[in-house]
């Protein structure tokens, strides 16, 4: 994987994004500015529209408004390549797919009915960046939550995307795994020219690692630096004052 220093010249602009399912307006007037080399965390209560926002960015649900990927140097609009990491994948324990198979099915040109040494090495190198190269021949169904997460991350950053989009990627992972995960995010934003949007429930981690926090409740109710958002009235309304106190204590540890 080529290491690129974040250039700061690209940004993703979300303008007036809205989503409605039938009569029900789920998201409206979402305006966001996401910069490369930064982690933007999306937080909000259950049902606030966080996952819908992810789906809208992926074009999975019909939406109004637009999502632009701009080069600030010459103001041109470019095609946005998204590396997406879902919460989990539909694989049961007995699924006959190795990590190599899963990786290749999403990224490879060679049919997974054959395996060449070259391709195997190539996938192994991509997995090595997330310290999971040893799992390459293991069935995907036998991986732990944390291991699967790293494999999915390796897949997501494989084609050097512009935007890494993570939908609550650490559900079901223990504290050590969480620390590892967020440190990896830190590493990715510093070494790859990546904007990271992370939907998360883990407020103390968000406080510690995110560069920007976006609080959503149907629309953006607060956005800015973590401290700014966590002290906002909108935040207190959703998470209560206790959460803010707890977050600050944890963040200071």
């Amino acid at each position, binding site marked *: 994987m080529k290491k690129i220093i974040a250039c700061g010249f690209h940004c993703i602009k979300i303008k007036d994004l809205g989503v409605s399912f039938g009569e029900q307006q789920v998201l409206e007037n979402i305006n966001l500015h996401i910069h490369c080399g930064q982690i933007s965390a999306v937080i909000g209560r259950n049902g606030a529209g966080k996952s819908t926002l992810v789906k809208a960015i992926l074009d999975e649900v019909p939406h109004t408004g637009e999502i632009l990927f701009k080069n600030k140097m010459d103001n041109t609009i470019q095609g946005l390549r998204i590396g997406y990491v879902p919460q989990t994948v539909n694989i049961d324990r007995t699924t*006959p797919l190795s990590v190599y198979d899963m990786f290749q099915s999403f990224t*490879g040109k060679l049919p997974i009915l054959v395996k060449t040494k070259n391709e195997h090495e190539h996938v192994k190198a991509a997995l090595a960046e997330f310290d999971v190269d040893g799992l390459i021949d293991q069935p995907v169904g036998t991986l732990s939550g944390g291991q699967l997460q790293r494999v999915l991350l390796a897949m997501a950053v494989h084609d050097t995307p512009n935007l890494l989009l993570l939908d609550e990627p650490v559900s079901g992972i223990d504290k050590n795994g969480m620390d590892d995960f967020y440190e990896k995010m830190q590493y990715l934003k510093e070494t790859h020219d990546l904007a990271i949007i992370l939907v998360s429930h883990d407020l103390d981690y968000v406080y510690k690692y995110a560069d920007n926090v976006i609080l959503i409740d149907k629309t953006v109710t607060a956005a800015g630096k973590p401290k700014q958002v966590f002290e906002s009235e909108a935040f207190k309304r959703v998470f209560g004052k206790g959460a803010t106190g707890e977050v600050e204590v944890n963040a200071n540890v």
Partner: protein
Amino acid sequence: MFSEMFSYAFMVRATIAILLISPLFGMVGTMIVQKRMAYFSDALGHSALTGIAAGVIMGIANTTISMIIFGICFALLLNYISRKGLSSSDTLISVFASCATALGLAILSRGGSFANYSAILVGDILSITASEIIQLIVLFAVILVFWCVSINRLTAISIHATLAKSRSISVRIMEDAFAVLIALLVMLSIKWVGILLINALLILPAASSRNISDNFREYTYLSIIFSIFSGIVGLFVSYFTDMATGPMIVIIASVIYFATYIYGKDR
């Protein structure tokens, strides 16, 4: 013993037909099982009756054509309605399958003539003709090419459709193409295998292979091997015991399934 068997032209043709159909069943079955579409392919098999009925009503002499056209429309319709997400897809498939079967049976039984069509229920591989074998060769080539080109994308969709979409895989087109492919395979082989058993042949080899495979290559190749093995051994056993071929193939495929299940459990 075998030389006597192969002195009959129909046995030679049946063996060739099985060597063509069974690897396709083994291969396509892996993705049907992986995508949990067993019910879908079963419904498609039942819709063959309606396809024949439609051909009879419209006065088409070659009912294979009406079966294929009806099968493709039926498969695409099922996909379309499943995507709407109005009802759970197994309920929906069941409703459509029963409806199609009833319609087919009603039309074909008009004037007490269903006996003319009852052969389609169990199939008869021994009646295959040389020109029909050529159809199977074309089908074999088409599916093989489709498989090599699409297997990665189909697998990716089976793992996570949204993730696949985020990597520019056209989920809808691939799902429809796969449904059409199943329709083609089912309709072109149903005369030889029979409506009652065709799904068993699609599902059993893949399910057996799944019991003991760790990766996709083992899964595919073992499924193909199990399928060819059951097909050929089933044909020979049926010849020597003078029993119907289709059921014998399914019995052997089932034995393989239980053996791999027991073996796989202890892994």
